C-alpha cells in the first residue's frame, strides 16, 4: 500500500518547523513587510528613514546569520540546508544588500528635487535579497525555482523603477528573457524529477549514483538546468540581455544585480552541479568548461570596444562569470573549487559595486541627461576625472586594478584561488585561457584609467554641476574601497571562512 494511502485516516505528519534554521530569511521577510506598511501608511517618510529601516532589517538578519554560523543541518524535510555555502552566501549577500541600500538611498536626486524612484524600492530590495539567500540555501529544486522567481520578480520591478525610457526597456528585456530562462529551468526540473523521482537535491544525488537510473532523461534535465542557471549568471551564449539591462537600469539597481545575482546564482550553481550532480561530473564538465571559455573570451573581447562604462562593466561581469565557471568546473572533483568560487564572489561583489558607485557619483557631475540612455556613464564623462575629483578617480583606479587582478588587491587573490583550483582539478588548459582573457581584460580596465588619468578634461570645467551632498554614497564608496584593499592585504580570515564552505550538504 502506498504510504500516503496509509495515512488517510491519520492526522497529517506535519513537518517540524525549524524556526532557527531560517531565522535570517524570516528577519528579511518581516523587515520587508514592515517597510511595505511604512510606505503605505506614512507616504511622506524620507528616503533616509526608509534606508535606515532597511539597514536595521539587514543588521538583524546579519546578527541571526552569525548566531546560526555553526549550524549544519537540513531543515524542512530537505527543503533548505544549512552548510558552508549557505552561511557564506548569506553573509556576502547581506553586506552587498547594505551597500546597495546606501546607493539606493542616495538615488539620483539632486538637492531640492523629488526623487524619481518610488519608495517601494526599499522593500523590494529586501525581498530580492530574501529570494537570493533562499536560493543559496535551497536544497530542493522547487524551492530553487520559487526563490529564483522571488528575486527575479523583485529585480524586474526595481529595474523599471524610474520613468526613464531606458530603464523601462531594460526592465522589459530582463523580464522577457528572465521568464524565458525560468521556463528552461522548470523544464529541466521536471525532467530531473522524471528521471530520479524526486526534486530533492539529496535524493537526486543518491539517484545519480544509481546505475539503473535513466541516464538520457536525467542528462537532458541537467542540460536544461544548466541553461537556466547560465542565463541567470549571464554566461555566454546566454548573455545577450546583460549589457542592455545593466546600461538601462538605474545604477544602484544595476550594481545590486551585478553583484548579488551572481552570488546567489553561483551559490545554487555550485550546490546543484558540484553537490547533487557531482556524480555526473564527466558529463557536465565539458559543457561548463566550454561555456567558461566562451564566457571569458567573448566577455573580455566585447568589453574592449565599449564606450559606455556601465555597458563595459556589464561585459566585464560576463567575463568574470567565466572565471567563476572555471571554479564550478573544478568544484565537483576538488573542494577548493567551491571555496575558490565563494571567495571570488565575495571579492567580486565589492569590486563591481564599488565601480558602479563611482559611476553613480560621476553621473551626478553633468546636467541630467534626458535622452534614452539616461545616466551619464559614457567614457567621455570621465575625461580628466583625476584632476577634477581625485578621490573618485583614486577609488576608480582601485576598483579597476582589482578587477584586472593586480596584486595586492582583493581581486588578485580571488583570481589566484580560482586558477589554483583549476590546476588542481587538472584543467590547466582552462586556466591558460583564463590568463589570456585576463590580459585582454587589462585593456579595457586600463582604458578607463587612461581616460580618467591621462586625458585632459574636455570643455569648460565650470559647466559641470556640483555632485551635491552624497553622504550615503560616500560611506558606501569608502566601505567598498576599504574592503577591496583590506581583503587584498589580509585575505587569510576570509579564505579560511571560504574553506569552511567547501562541504556541501546537498
Amino acid at each position, binding site marked *: 500500500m502506498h504510504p500516503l494511502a496509509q495515512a488517510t485516516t491519520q492526522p497529517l505528519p506535519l513537518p517540524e518547523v525549524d524556526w532557527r534554521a531560517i531565522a535570517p530569511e524570516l528577519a528579511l521577510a518581516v523587515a520587508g513587510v514592515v517597510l511595505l506598511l511604512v510606505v503605505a501608511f506614512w507616504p511622506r517618510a524620507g528616503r533616509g528613514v526608509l534606508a535606515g529601516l532597511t539597514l536595521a532589517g539587514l543588521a538583524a538578519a546579519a546578527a541571526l546569520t552569525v548566531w546560526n554560523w555553526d549550524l549544519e543541518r537540513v531543515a524542512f524535510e530537505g527543503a533548505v540546508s544549512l552548510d558552508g555555502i549557505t552561511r557564506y552566501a548569506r553573509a556576502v549577500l547581506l553586506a552587498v544588500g547594505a551597500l546597495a541600500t546606501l546607493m539606493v538611498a542616495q538615488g539620483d536626486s539632486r538637492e531640492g528635487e523629488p526623487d524619481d524612484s518610488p519608495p517601494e524600492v526599499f522593500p523590494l530590495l529586501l525581498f530580492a535579497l530574501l529570494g537570493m539567500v533562499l536560493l543559496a540555501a535551497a536544497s530542493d529544486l522547487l524551492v530553487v525555482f520559487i526563490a529564483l522567481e522571488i528575486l527575479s520578480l523583485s529585480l524586474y520591478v526595481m529595474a523599471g523603477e524610474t520613468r526613464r525610457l531606458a530603464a523601462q526597456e531594460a526592465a522589459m528585456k530582463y523580464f522577457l528573457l528572465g521568464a524565458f530562462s525560468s521556463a528552461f529551468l522548470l523544464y529541466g526540473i521536471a525532467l530531473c524529477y522524471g528521471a530520479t523521482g524526486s526534486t530533492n537535491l539529496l535524493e537526486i544525488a543518491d539517484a545519480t549514483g544509481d546505475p539503473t537510473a535513466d541516464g538520457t532523461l536525467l542528462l537532458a534535465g541537467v542540460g536544461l538546468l544548466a541553461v537556466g542557471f547560465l542565463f541567470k549568471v549571464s554566461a555566454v551564449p546566454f548573455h545577450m540581455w546583460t549589457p542592455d539591462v545593466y546600461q538601462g537600469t538605474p545604477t544602484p539597481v544595476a550594481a545590486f544585480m551585478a553583484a548579488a545575482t551572481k552570488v546567489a546564482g553561483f551559490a545554487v550553481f555550485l550546490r546543484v552541479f558540484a553537490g547533487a550532480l557531482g556524480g555526473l561530473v564527466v558529463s557536465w564538465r565539458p559543457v561548463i568548461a566550454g561555456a567558461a571559455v566562451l564566457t571569458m573570451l567573448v566577455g573580455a573581447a566585447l568589453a574592449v570596444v565599449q564606450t559606455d562604462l556601465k555597458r563595459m562593466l556589464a561585459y566585464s561581469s560576463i567575463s568574470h562569470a567565466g572565471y567563476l565557471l572555471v571554479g564550478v568546473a573544478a568544484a565537483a572533483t576538488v573542494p577548493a573549487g567551491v571555496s575558490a568560487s565563494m571567495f571570488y564572489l565575495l571579492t567580486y561583489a565589492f569590486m563591481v559595486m564599488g565601480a558602479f558607485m563611482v559611476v553613480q557619483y560621476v553621473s551626478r557631475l553633468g546636467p541630467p541627461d534626458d535622452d534614452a540612455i539616461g545616466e551619464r556613464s559614457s567614457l567621455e564623462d570621465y575625461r580628466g576625472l583625476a584632476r577634477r575629483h581625485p578621490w573618485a578617480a583614486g577609488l576608480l583606479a582601485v576598483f579597476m586594478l582589482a578587477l584586472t587582478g593586480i596584486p595586492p588587491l582583493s581581486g588578485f587573490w580571488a583570481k589566484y584561488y580560482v586558477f589554483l583550483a583549476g590546476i588542481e582539478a587538472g584543467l590547466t588548459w582552462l586556466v591558460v585561457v583564463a590568463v589570456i582573457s585576463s590580459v585582454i581584460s587589462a585593456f579595457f580596465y586600463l582604458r578607463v584609467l*587612461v581616460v580618467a588619468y591621462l586625458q585632459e578634461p574636455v570643455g569648460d570645467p565650470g559647466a559641470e554641476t556640483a555632485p551635491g551632498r552624497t553622504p550615503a554614497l560616500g560611506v558606501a564608496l569608502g566601505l567598498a574601497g576599504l574592503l577591496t584593499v583590506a581583503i587584498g592585504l589580509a585575505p587569510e580570515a576570509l579564505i579560511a571562512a571560504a574553506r569552511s564552505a567547501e562541504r556541501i550538504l546537498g
Partner: protein
Amino acid sequence: MLLTATLFAPLAGALLVALVPAARQESARLVALAASLVTLGLAVVLAARFQTGDAGFQLGMTAEWVPAFGVSYRVGVDGVSLPLVLLTAVLTPLAIAGSWRMADRPRTYLALLLVLETAMLGVFVSLDLFLFYVFWEAVLVPAYFLIGSFGGERRVYAAVKFFVYTLLGGLLMLVGIIALFWLHQQATGTPTFDYEALVDFQKAPSTQRWLFAAFFAAFAIKTPVWPFHTWLPDAYTEAPTTTTVLLAGVMSKLGVYGFLRFALPLFPDGARWAQPVLLTLAVVGILYCALVATMQRDFKTLVAYSSVSHLGFIVLGIFAFNLQGLQGGVFYMVAHGLVIGGLFFITGMLEERRGTRRIEEFGGLQQVVPRMGGVMLVITLGSVALPGLVGFVGEFLTLLGAFLENRVYAVLATVGVILGAVYLLWAYQRMWHGPLEREENRSLPDLTRREWAILAPLVAAIIVLGLFPRPVLDRVEPSAQRVVEQTQAPSP
C-alpha cells in the same frame, strides 16, 4: 628587520609625500629626497652588515602572510641581490633630484617614484615565490602611471603597450608558480612558496621544461630579450627622463635577475634545455639592437636600443652557466644601471636646455658646455667598455664566460661590442664635436650645482668600480658559485 625597513622606507615616504598639502608642493621634493636618502642609508648599513664569503641568504626576515595558501613574507639578500639593492637605493635619490624642476603635479610624480622603488626592491629581496610575484606585478602600476601620465606625446600608447605586454608575461609566470606550488604540495604535502624549499624539490625534466617556459615568458618580456623588446623603445622614449633612468637602470634588471635567481636554480634541466635558444636570442638581440641603434636620430631612442643590446650581454653571461658568466652578469647589471642612468640623465639635461633630443640639432657642444662634455665622455666610454671603467669588467667577464661555454656565440657577441662602440662614439662625435652650427647651441649653460650633484656620484662610481671591482665581485662570487652548482646539478 633592517631589510624590511629598507624595503618599506620608500613606501612610507610616498605616503608622506602624498600627505603634503597641495599648496606646498615644493616641500614634497624635500620629503621625497629625504625618504630616498634614508633608504640609501639603510641600504648602506645593510651592505656593511653583509657577511662576505657566505653564499646563502642573510639579514632576512620571515613572517606569516596568508598561511591558507602557504604564502609567507620572506625576504633576504645574498651576493647576487645585494648589489642590485644598492643600485636601486643609489639611483632613486638621483632620479628624485633630477625631477627637482618638475612643474606638473610633482607630488604625484615623486610619490609614484618612491612606490616604484619599494616594488623593485621587493622583487630583489623576495624569497617567497608568491611575494616575488606580488612585487613583480606591483612594479607595473607606478610604472604605468609614470609613463602614461607624465610622458611624451605617445605616452598613452607606450604605457598601455608596456602594461599589457608585461602583464601577459607575469600571468603566464603565475600559472607556472601555481603549478610548481601544486606539484610540490602533491609530492611533500606541505603547501609553501618558500624559494629554498622549491629549489630543493626535485622536478622531472619534462615538467621543468614547460615551467621554465612559463617563467621565461615573464622574464624575457621584462628584460627584454629580443624579439620581445618592442615595448621598450616606446616606453623608454615616451617616459619622463627620470622615470626612464629608473626603468633602464633598475627595472630592466628585474628580468635578468629573475633568470638568475629563479629560472636557473628552480629548473636547471629546463634551463639547460633552453640554453641554445637563449644564447641565440641574446646574440641576435645584441647585434640587431646595436644596428638599429646606429640608425636612430633621437638620442633617447638610441640609448634605449643600446640598453637592449647591452642586456643581451647579461643574458649571454647568465646562460653561460659558469662562474665567470654569472659573476660578470651581476656586475654588468650594476655597471649597466650606472652607465645607462648617466646617459639618460644627460639626455634629459640636454632636452631641458634645447627642447629636443635629435642628434643633428646638436654639434660642437664641447666648446659651449665643456664640463658636461667631459662627464658625457666618461659615461660613454664606460658604456663602450673602455678598460679601467666599469663597463669593461662586466663585459669582459660575461664574454669570457660565454667563450668558455661556446666560442661562436662569444665571437659574434664581440662584434656587438664593436658595433656598440660605433654607434655611441659616433653619436658622441656628432653631438659634441664638429662645427658649432646652430645658433641656439651657442648660449647653452653648463652643468649647474644640482646637476653636478646628480652626475658626480655616477661618474665616481663608474671610475672607482672600474678600477677596483674586487669588493663587488668578492661579495657576488659565493652566491654566483652556488647558482652555478645548482644549475650544473645532475637531474634526478
